[in-house]
């Protein structure tokens, strides 16, 4: 628990790599802060399609925000997707949305990759 804001930490999730000796980053152990930074980057890469942003909130939770300034504070990755649904106000964010997939494919296309 955070002593300053009394926020509880989320438990370990199956997606976590930091602190697990089986996972490494080029031979080095993965630090929690690095893992969270990467997650925030990747989630932002996807959520920009919906105009939402995610940020790390003090290393213990995530803040999901929409352009209107509404925020949701969540503890874990699964909570991010619940917040996304709330902040989109009725619109359903879907990883199988064909237009989202097309945009991600374009983003990661070899031409873009080498640019």
């Amino acid at each position, binding site marked *: 628990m*955070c002593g*300053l*804001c009394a926020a509880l930490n989320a438990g370990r*999730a*199956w*997606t976590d*790599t930091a602190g697990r000796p*089986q*996972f*490494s*980053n080029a031979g080095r152990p*993965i630090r929690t*802060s690095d*893992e969270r*930074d*990467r*997650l*925030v*980057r*990747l*989630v*932002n*890469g*996807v959520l*920009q399609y919906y105009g939402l*942003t*995610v*940020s*790390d*909130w*003090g*290393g*213990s939770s995530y*803040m999901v*925000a929409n352009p209107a*300034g509404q*925020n949701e*504070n969540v503890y874990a*990755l*699964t909570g991010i*997707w*619940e917040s996304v649904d709330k902040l989109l106000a009725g619109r*359903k*964010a*879907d*990883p*199988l949305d*064909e237009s989202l*997939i097309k945009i*991600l*494919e374009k*983003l*990661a296309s070899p031409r*873009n*990759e080498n*640019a």
Partner: protein
Amino acid sequence: MRDATILTGFLGSGKTTLLNRMLTQPDFPASAVLVNEFGEVGIDNALLRFSTERVAVLANGCICCAVREDVEEAIRLLTEQEEKSEIPSFGHLFIETSGLADPARLIQTFSASPVLRSRFKLRCVAAAVDATLGAETLNRFDEAARQVALADTVILTKTDLMEEGRSVGPLLNQIQTVNPGVRTTIAHPQDLPDTLVQHLLGNAGPDPRDPAIAFMRGSSADGRLNIHHLLDTGISSFCLTLSETIDWTAFGMWLTWLLHRHGASVLRVKGLLNVAQCGGPVAFHAVQHMVYPPEHLDHWPTEDETSRLVFIVKDLDPALVERSLQAFNRLTRVEARYAREWTRHKDIGAGSTVRGRPIRRPSTPRWMR
């Protein structure tokens, strides 16, 4: 920590008869049996409890995450009575579901309930399939197909009632179509195979959840996008092969979102992954919203070291699932290029607002992180 087994199967598939035969085997461990409905065949020499289906929906409101409150309560009562020596102690717990029950809820209950999670380990989900009517039932009834899709072991019953000259081969193929790589056994009318009993007790050699073993047996995991459909149920299974290494963070992000949005449609995901952040293969297994802790293996079961993921889904387009997974995984290639753009919101600091209230400083001083 005691072991538990869920025995499921469609109406009239012979679950109770099978359980009765097993419990009357000599040297069978003392067991408690929780029956979802009153069966017609009495079970002797075992502790019996009955429960009527009562479902509690979890806080997030997702219906497929509902836990079986009745089962949780019945098991809690059993253990309390055992502690007070009101009933004999038992080493194994069997839960026999009703013919139309969805075992996913029971599996979820074992994961979500603190009482069950701390006292019982779910070792096996077994589905009984009637050898005479099983093929038609699997094609026509969604419930039957779901039960097989969620099982670790499928037991063919009533093989003695089959017509002369008919073989169980086509039915076994159909079962493999629904759940590629699932263990199948025949419960002969005269004697129960010892291996079957050991599997149900969770004592058999390899863990039935071990996809490495399952893949070696599985006929459909041969490196192509094989899609198998069941006629009327909308359930299909397919195997994805990914030649690129999988980024665990991207995979976690994708799957948690997929399960959040389509959890009720994704009956099962299992596979062996070549993960960029790991040396050896990672065995992966999920049932609807419940993801089991990934298992790190020492070696690949075959020479082929490509990632293989088997999906058992209902009304989902396999091609879209594959494209989506690949698109998310490839996002990591351009991650460095967009790093600044995608992390500019890293700290919500002074000047921004949370729930309309201004932030005067970051929540945690940087020196404390």
